[in-house]
């Protein structure tokens, strides 16, 4: 049922929008092309933002800084009830989508998907977003230089969700 919903969603949206527009006398294809042209321009405008963000993330990953940070933060986070194995994922998740997905796929094979740890890692991944990348792309597209409290609030929200994930999996 759930799968059907997410598979049928896109075709259903397409059908609904085009048919409604056609009935209401909108020149459907011309309007589509006009919008698509704007979309192409926007996507190309984002490329420089993307190159910058991904290069920064690549340096963090390649240099082994994440591993060092994991080692440093291990003691305090374990005292707070967060398993050591979850720490690398917690650190990398807000910054890199591909790195965190790779790490997750590797770790879940190791710990087993139905163990507490496997479920906690899955919940962390399922309930969080690549904050820095998302914000950079969205604000970059709008040519915003000063994002004010967006990054701070998003990181707070992201870590609240990820820590909640660990504790929820302990209970449920």
């Amino acid at each position, binding site marked *: 049922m759930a799968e059907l919903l997410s598979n049928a969603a896109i075709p259903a949206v397409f059908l609904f929008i085009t048919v409604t527009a056609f009935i209401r006398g909108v020149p459907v294809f011309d309007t589509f092309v006009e919008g698509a042209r704007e979309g192409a321009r926007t996507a190309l405008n984002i490329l420089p933002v993307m190159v910058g963000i991904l290069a920064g993330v690549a340096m963090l990953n390649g240099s082994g800084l994440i591993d060092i940070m994991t080692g440093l933060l291990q003691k305090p986070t374990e005292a707070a009830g967060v398993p050591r194995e979850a720490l690398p994922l917690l650190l990398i998740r807000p910054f890199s989508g591909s790195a965190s997905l790779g790490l997750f796929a590797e770790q879940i094979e190791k710990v087993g998907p139905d163990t507490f740890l496997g479920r906690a890692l899955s919940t962390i991944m399922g309930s969080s977003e690549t904050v820095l990348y998302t914000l950079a792309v969205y604000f970059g597209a*709008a040519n915003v230089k000063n994002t004010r409290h967006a990054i701070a609030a*998003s990181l*707070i929200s992201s870590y609240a969700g990820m820590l909640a994930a660990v504790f929820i999996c302990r209970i449920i």
Partner: protein
Amino acid sequence: MLNAIWVIMMFSGIVTSLLTGRTKEVSDAILASCSQAVNLTIVMLGAMCLWSGLMKVAEKAGIVDALARLLKGIFRFLFPGIPQGHPANGAIAMSLSADLLGLGNAATPLGILAMKELSGINGNSPVASNAMVMFGVINAACIQLIPSTILIIRQQAGSAHPSSIIPCVWIASLVSAITGIVSAKALERVSRVPGSKAEKALRHLV
């Protein structure tokens, strides 16, 4: 903010690589990241055209307005300052619906469109408005009904119940979204808009 973060990322990455002797890994990773960015852009280029075009059709047909009217109450609280009947309302509604349904490829283009509408209301200023920050934060909280990618990976890893984590994901996303909304609202006052009344008053005091 991104200026500082970027420099910190570069600096800490390069210094660490010098200390750990992983300079080769870092230079490989930087070059690989450029082609990764181009790949991502090309993948997104098509989706962006498709959804921008479709949104234009939906806008002209009045569908976006109708959707926005449904969500008027919540929006007035979350995004004060958007004029009633402005296309930004509809764009936000479409983008959040795509997030909720987990339509990854559709969600990003729709989110970008909504952000550009909000920027228009803000006079295309280089400084983000409260509504823009709120929209960014809600998007970054990633509320989705079915985390399909994660379920597929769980299945491949041999899980007996891949979807058993869905309720946990919902609760965690909710915690994340509520914390995000609260902290965005709370930080609005702290993070001043340069040139705003609050800042002028403060400068006057100092």
